[in-house]
């Protein structure tokens, strides 16, 4: 389906009935048969619905159960599914990640939450040496149906050690799936797919978009990996953006439209696998491309996309591919410095204008 983006969305009239999960988050049922949810609820719904369907799913992580999740994504799940399936772990990322790998190898389908993906670095060996390689180094004997999820990218003013975006980092490793949704609709559909397949998935949320709302279907749906989505159609310049970057890009696109520049926003939704076909198709139309990401520039997702465009769409380019990334410094605390570090709309606008020779 084509998605409509919020927060500016005016929901259809509420009929004041809540949708499931009834003990945790609830969507609001609308008169048009859709439900209004925010990203947080959308993820929780996906977990809830799949946990009801498949009792091999367990949720574990720091504060996911009694505390309802540091960011309330798992709110209500403990009450519904009990402590056997919704498990508070000690602060022991390496340990519970490895434990989840072992559980995934032996018939379970764990969902582990990193309170922040920054903390996944503590578990790097388990993610890389074990989760990502298990299928290959066992000749396909074992698979690791594991979902690793949590907020990724910069939170508000949390400085150096809590602001990493890890799309590029984990995309580097064969064997991992990297999902980075930007909307409630995508978040739910991609989580459904993550919970129905056999590979380790890095499911990267973003704290800043947990509250964004959108009308989504009440009925079950899933979004396949590797299928991108056009978040805004345009003709002059393609912006490839994902996660929070989509929202920065949308803001930039509005401003650029006033200058007569029509921007097309392609959201690949999954970084690995990457829907390069959709990106190429868009660039063939617009001849220009700006990649927006919260990762660093060196070896970033933009680097990969730019390189692939060189191979796949060289003759369609009217300008070099521009990249708007987090600047190459640890995240500073100061408000003004943080603003300049992130790939905010003002930097996207400048990059699009440059690509359009304006």
């Amino acid at each position, binding site marked *: 389906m084509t998605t409509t983006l919020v927060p500016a969305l005016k929901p259809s009239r509420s009929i004041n009935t809540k949708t499931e999960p009834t003990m945790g988050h609830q969507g609001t049922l609308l008169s048009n048969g859709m439900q209004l949810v925010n990203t947080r609820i959308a993820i929780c719904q996906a977990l809830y619905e799949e946990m009801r369907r498949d009792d091999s799913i367990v949720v574990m992580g720091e504060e996911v159960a009694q505390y309802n999740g540091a960011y309330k994504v798992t709110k209500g799940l403990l009450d519904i599914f009990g402590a056997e399936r919704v498990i508070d772990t000690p602060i022991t990322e*390496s340990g519970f990640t490895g434990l989840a790998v072992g559980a995934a190898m032996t018939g379970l389908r764990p969902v582990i939450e990193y309170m922040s993906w920054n903390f996944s670095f503590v578990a790097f060996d388990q993610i890389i040496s074990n989760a990502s390689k298990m299928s290959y180094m066992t000749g396909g004997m074992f698979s690791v149906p594991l979902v690793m999820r949590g907020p990724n990218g910069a939170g508000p003013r949390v400085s150096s050690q809590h602001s990493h975006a890890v799309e590029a980092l984990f995309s580097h490793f*064969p*064997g991992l799936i990297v999902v980075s949704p930007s909307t409630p609709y995508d978040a739910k559909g991609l989580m459904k797919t993550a919970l129905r397949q056999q590979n380790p998935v890095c499911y990267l949320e973003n704290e800043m978009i947990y509250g964004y709302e959108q009308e989504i279907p009440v009925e079950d749906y899933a979004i396949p990996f590797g299928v991108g989505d056009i978040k805004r159609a345009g003709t002059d310049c393609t912006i490839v953006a994902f996660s929070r970057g989509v929202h920065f890009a949308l803001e930039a696109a509005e401003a650029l439209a006033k200058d007569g520049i029509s921007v097309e926003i392609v959201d690949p939704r999954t970084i690995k696998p990457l829907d390069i076909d959709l990106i190429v198709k868009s660039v063939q139309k617009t001849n220009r491309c700006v990649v927006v990401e919260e990762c660093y520039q060196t070896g970033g997702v933009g680097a990969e996309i730019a390189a692939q465009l060189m191979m796949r769409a060289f003759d369609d380019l009217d300008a070099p591919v521009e990249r708007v990334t987090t600047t190459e410094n640890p995240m500073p605390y100061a408000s003004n410095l943080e603003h300049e570090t992130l790939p905010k709309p003002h930097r996207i606008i400048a990059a699009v204008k440059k690509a359009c020779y304006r």
Partner: protein
Amino acid sequence: MSAPVTLPPVDANAVRAEIGKERVLSLYRKMLLIRRFEEQSEKQSGAFRDGTQIKKIAGFLHLYIGQEAVQTGFYDHLTPGRDYTATSYRCHALGILSGLDPKELMAELFGKVTGNVRGKGGSMHFFSKEKGMLGGHGIVGGQIPVGTGAAFSAKYRKTGGVSVSFMGDGAVPQGTFHESLNMASLWKLPAIYVIENNRYGMGTACSRAVAVEAIATAKAPGYGMPSFTFDGLDLYASWKTAQAAVALARAGQPVLVEAKTYRFRGHSASDAALYRSKEEVDQYRKLDPIERLKNDLLGCGWLNETAVEQIEEQIAMQVQEAVEFAETSPEPPLSELGRHVYAEG
């Protein structure tokens, strides 16, 4: 339950009787097969494929020689398929004990498509989904949380299974060891952690890497766990300890076990072992667990020289067949290169 237990030397007659003749002879065969298999792999690692400069067995080759009694004693209390095991890169013995065909294991060492993991893992990565063997791990301590996860899974699915995570003394300082023991104890997982203290983490003496000498005795109380320490060069001690540990784990009580053992070879095939004296090695060689068991069985009359020779011959033939199988097996086709990066289906 949390009082550390250091087992006194076991009463060989009693344990032997408890195990029974057929079973103990089978354990003797298994230990001997492990030994001969590894000796043969050590030999093959020094050879090239005919007419090439490609080594028949290359990469790392970490030999278990000297430590056979530990995993043999433990595995005898496990049920492949229901119970789980995980170990370090020193994983040949566990593969054999899990019941995997020496042919597929040797073929794996040879990098052949008929190998245990299709020639993609080599010496450090033996696995069996069917038998519940979770590897074969190349990062020190990396297998401990994986083994813990299997215990979690067994408990969640109420299979009655236990999970034994083997590790060297070198893994004890790793965070994963402590993180795993902590979670296992918190959640009462059917998990057994066996430290095979062969006195050296690669070339570093354990006393230079681990702050306490009696590892299990000192560490277990910190995780609210019972512990056992035993003579890892004695099959009977191993078997008895395993019996107790597995029983506890099946009842939902994780256990920490330390086997005082020794590896007769270097850390890996390329290690000249200059960090320890020849006298020390010779001293331990006199305690060779296979020789001790053989002498015990000869002494009690369950074995005689003829039978010993027969067994040796049969095992030599089995190993030779494994080598021949490995030699004649094809290499993986290049189409294997990109297969299994992601799960198929």
